């Protein structure tokens, strides 16, 4: 019920924004009046307007999961909704103010309300930075910006700018930190006929993860290069970070207490390397790096998008790679598209196996199975194929329909979550989730105003 009440408040905000958008859209659409035939003095000069520009964006979306046993989730982005269809996965509302402070400086503020991993719709500051343009080609920004880790990370909530209802979860749940508090540099230039943007960044970031997880990035340092020529855009990036990841959920507590069992009350540990394993799963000493290569082609008729990402971490997170390929074809305001995507684990979070102090029949197998269940619940590996249709039926408004067939990989939960969660017998969860095929149907309306 709590979730529903929160969504209700969110929906009220959405309605208000939609009303504003409709009023805005009522300004003369054609506007083809011949200048000079009207009294020119009726239009106030622009220079008198305050140097603040307001704009916004939103998505109202629902995902129906064709499976009564599991729920769809955008891992670390939203809360796995109990309702089906779930309005929490994609619905969001954002407002932005661009404030010009001087000829070279500006302040940009953006807040976004969407369901987070804890089920709250409390608005978050998603942009809050001061920018300073040193030269026409070099701008420094300090404050909060969007994490620029992957090709479309900075516009992860701007669904209007993307063909799909949401960027593929296989790729964008890989390293799902949202905001970067720090400083970045935007350097633009021309190179070999390409418009090039060089984008180094430095900062820190926080993330809540369902269930009872908390991630923190420190000393995030990386750089992206994007190069555009005509219809073609190429994107390359690499970053590194120190990170911590802490779990406090029931599944972690149970696993930890099993790995900390003693031979007898107050005695030595049963699992010799129990603490070693736990140090691989949760703590403050993580180091990771990620790389991305992407390409986009959009000639107005054909749209192609491809992206490949790789993540490595010394602990707490698995090594993985993810990819997606999209092809779309525009027919006027309609664009059907297909997408295939995959996320594969290259190395589990830990490869340690339980070592017992004394042989106890069946105990090692049971403890290892519990560990594997835990690792699987943090593994996003799956493959999916999506068929979609985007309809730009009104100015700044797009309707999208998507059908997705996803197959969760072995020893993985993919982008799904069990509907009934009980850790009494984790083998039941394994049986439920591993290698499961799930269909989802999504519908959404995106607006910008």
């Amino acid at each position, binding site marked *: 019920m709590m979730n529903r009440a929160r969504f209700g408040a969110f929906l009220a905000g959405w309605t208000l924004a939609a009303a504003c958008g409709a009023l805005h859209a009522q*300004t*003369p*659409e*054609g*506007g*083809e*009046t*011949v*200048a*000079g*035939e*009207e009294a*020119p003095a009726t*239009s106030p*000069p*622009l*220079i008198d*307007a305050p140097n603040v*520009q307001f*704009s916004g*964006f939103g998505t109202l979306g629902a995902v129906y999961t064709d499976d009564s046993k599991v729920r769809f989730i955008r891992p670390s982005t939203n809360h796995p909704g109990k309702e089906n269809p779930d309005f929490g996965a994609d619905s969001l509302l*954002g407002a*932005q103010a*661009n404030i*010009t402070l001087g*000829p070279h400086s*500006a302040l*940009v503020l*953006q807040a976004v309300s969407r369901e987070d991993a804890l089920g709250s719709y409390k608005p978050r500051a998603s*942009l809050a*930075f001061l*920018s300073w*343009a040193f*030269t*026409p*080609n070099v701008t420094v*920004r300090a404050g909060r910006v*969007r994490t620029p880790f992957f090709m479309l990370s*900075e*516009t992860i*909530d*701007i669904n*209007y*700018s*993307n063909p799909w209802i949401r960027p593929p979860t296989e790729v964008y749940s890989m390293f799902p930190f949202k905001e970067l508090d720090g400083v970045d540099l*935007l350097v*633009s230039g021309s190179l070999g006929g390409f*418009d090039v*943007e060089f984008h180094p960044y430095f900062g820190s970031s926080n993330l809540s993860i369902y269930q009872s997880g908390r991630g923190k990035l420190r000393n995030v340092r990386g750089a992206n290069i994007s190069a*555009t020529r*005509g*219809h073609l855009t190429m994107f390359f990036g690499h970053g590194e970070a120190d990170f911590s990841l802490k779990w406090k959920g029931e599944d972690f507590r149970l696993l930890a207490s099993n790995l900390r069992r003693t031979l007898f009350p107050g005695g030595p540990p049963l699992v010799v390397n129990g603490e070693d394993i736990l140090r691989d799963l949760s703590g403050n000493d993580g180091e990771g790096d990620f790389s991305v290569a992407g390409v986009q082609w*959009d000639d*107005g008729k054909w749209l192609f998008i491809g992206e490949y990402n790789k993540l490595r971490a010394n602990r707490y997170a698995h090594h993985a790679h993810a990819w997606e390929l999209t092809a779309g074809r*525009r027919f006027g*305001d309609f664009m059907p598209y297909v997408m295939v995507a995959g996320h594969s684990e290259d190395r589990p979070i830990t490869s340690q196996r339980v070592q017992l102090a004394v042989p106890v029949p069946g105990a090692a197998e049971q403890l290892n199975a519990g560990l594997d269940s835990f690792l699987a619940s943090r593994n996003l590996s799956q493959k999916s194929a999506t068929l979609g249709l985007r309809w*730009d039926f009104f*100015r*700044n408004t797009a309707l999208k329909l998507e059908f997705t067939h996803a197959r969760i990989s072995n020893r993985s939960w993919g982008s799904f979550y069990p509907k009934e969660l009980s850790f009494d017998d984790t083998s039941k969860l394994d049986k439920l989730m591993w290698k499961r095929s799930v269909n989802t149907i999504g519908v959404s309306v995106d607006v*910008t105003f």
Partner: protein
Amino acid sequence: MSRSRLSPFRAVLTLALAALFAGATVPAIAPAAAETTRANPAAKSDTPATTPDVQLVASIDGAVRTLTREEAKQLFLGHRNRLNDGTPVTLIDLPSGQTRNQLYQQLTGKNPIQVRANWSRLVFSGRVRPPREAGSESEALEWLASTPNAIGYLPADVSDKRLKVLLVVGG
């Protein structure tokens, strides 16, 4: 408003060059009484014989003196918001319609849907400020005439003493 810089010679030269560049007929120079003229009002009928060219314009008194086609393309793609000499620029968009679509298509090669997606991407990632959208052509004209750093576009058959033509984007 000071119009001291408006020399008839310069106005004729600009229009002549613009016409030459675009292969359009030279619009009559505005008579003193009316500031804005339309060379061929018939072109505003529902079925124009040919699509008029689009001209990029700025205030005659403003900071924008020249504009290369490459600069214009970069500005309207949102890849930059200043001129080569560092002058910050405010872009003025016309409301949705033929002139706007034509400008973006010919300058950036993007159709209206691509243009809107591109601006939303750049604006909401905090890269650039969105263009100011005028409610009508006449409002755009007033804004352009009265805002020193504004660059906008109008059909090539519109001329106004307070504006200078920076570039004509032909079909």
